[in-house]
């Protein structure tokens, strides 16, 4: 792998993950019927898993 880890690429990766995480957390909040702290915690962790999968999927496709 010859890709260098410049601050710019790190920033882009973090930005992509954060954008996915925020969008998926919003999706979770739309899906559920009532909101309380435990729901926030579970939703945020699920959205984090989703964000990681989104990034892994995009990399697996474009990385050839």
């Amino acid at each position, binding site marked *: 792998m010859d890709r260098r880890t410049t601050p710019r690429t790190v920033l882009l990766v973090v930005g992509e993950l954060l954008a996915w995480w925020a969008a998926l957390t919003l*999706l979770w*909040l*739309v*899906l559920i*019927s009532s909101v309380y702290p435990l729901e926030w915690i579970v939703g945020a962790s699920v959205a984090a898993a989703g964000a990681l999968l989104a990034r892994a999927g995009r990399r697996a496709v474009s990385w050839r």
Partner: protein
Amino acid sequence: MNGWVLAATVELAGGGAAALWGVTTGPTARRVVAQNLTTAALCPALLLLAQGYGRPSYVDLALLLALLGPVGTLVFARLLHEDLEGQRPSAWGLTYAVAAMGAVVVAAVCAATGPGRAMVKLLVIGALLVGGNLIASRALSGAFRGVRGG
């Protein structure tokens, strides 16, 4: 029986019978198109049923169908693309008509629900349904032409 369940019955009878007829007769190209339109015809029926029974949790069924139905069509588009070569299976008029009907149903159910998170959930389902349906139709009409073997 309230109006919502009646509308769902009509939709189920019409869409289901048409889909069943299309998927059991004719060349393979017509059958995959009918399989694709099943999702678009029956998902609004599930939404209407949820509204008619007054059970918001039944909306999850429509959510999963809107999510998984187009994926099922992608399976056929991918694994049957050699059979479909040269047939260009597409029925864009019908696809747009069914998509518009789905949008109308989602709008009606949204209007009955009133603003709130439940309405956003219905809109998400509508977007997944219409978007997924159009993409699946696109996939059937030759998106996998560059695929060999795998």
